[in-house]
């Protein structure tokens, strides 16, 4: 057991859930909703909004399927 795993065990999981959801939904609002019938909603979901990618920061190992296919 090293220092890293000690900290990891003590980290609560809810903030991770929040961060994962934010990344996922930012994309699903522009992509998943983009089917023909959801068009109205997807259009209003700011399609031009740039992707805020937490994984641009090297310390956060989050991957994003839409940006890094």
């Amino acid at each position, binding site marked *: 057991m090293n220092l890293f795993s000690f900290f990891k065990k003590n980290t*609560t*999981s*809810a*903030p991770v*859930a*929040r961060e*994962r*959801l*934010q990344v*996922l*939904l*930012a994309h*699903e*609002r522009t992509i*998943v*909703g983009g089917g023909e*019938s*959801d*068009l*109205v*909603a*997807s259009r*209003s*979901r*700011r399609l031009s*909004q740039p992707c*805020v990618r937490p994984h641009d920061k090297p310390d956060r190992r989050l991957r994003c399927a839409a940006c890094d296919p």
Partner: protein
Amino acid sequence: MAKVLVVTSGKGGVGKTTSTAALGAALAQSGQKVAMIDFDVGLRNLDLIMGAERRVVYDLINVIKGDAKIEQALIRDKRVETLHLLPASQTRDKDNLTDEGVARVIEGLREKFDWIICDSPAGIERGATLAMRHADVAVVVTNPEVSSIRDSDRIIGMLDSKTLKAENGEQVEKHLLLTRYDAARAQRGEILKVEDVLDILSIPLLAIIPESTEVLRSSNLGAPVTLGSPNSAPARAYLEAVRKLQGETIVEVQKQRGLFSKLFARRAA
């Protein structure tokens, strides 16, 4: 003229039927005329939660097909006389649930009731889209858990695009009902906090329904929790939700809007 309220979620088992029964009973207890419609064709449960399972003669599909009149199919509650239930069909084919048929049923009920509450099935298929189709108000039932939140987000997108209101350029009034919430677990960081869920979904909060054994106890007895256990924490939360639905304008979300909801607004404000 009734308000049509859909209780929806996307994800299954989060508490839609429990909430439909509790909200419906609470609204009726306040003197409103309420009709609850079970849209879960093939898997009806609202009759059971209401303790009316042995009184079902005709159902929604019978009415749509013209086998029965709406008055014959509606079951009047024995405890609250302004509360009525239109059960789903347990056996019939879902194909009979038509857009036109549902429209006719809703229009017929609008004249006679103050509230029509549609208990949506899980998923995003026909039953769910038809349950929300005529809605003026939507209660999005969500558990503080990743898959439920994701599915709620999808449902909110559908409320903004697939409902009649949306097609007419209007908005369905959306409310978040956070159910099965365990405050102690949220405090320990095991489940998402209320603020986080609100920031992500960015619709106003109607109420937080705590996780409680009283819900199970009431459904065992065939009573909505607001009738079966009116002083319990979940019942009080549902009663509070009904007070909000009946009038107060809700402003919380404006105050609580965080960075995420600002950046990724579902609708350009």
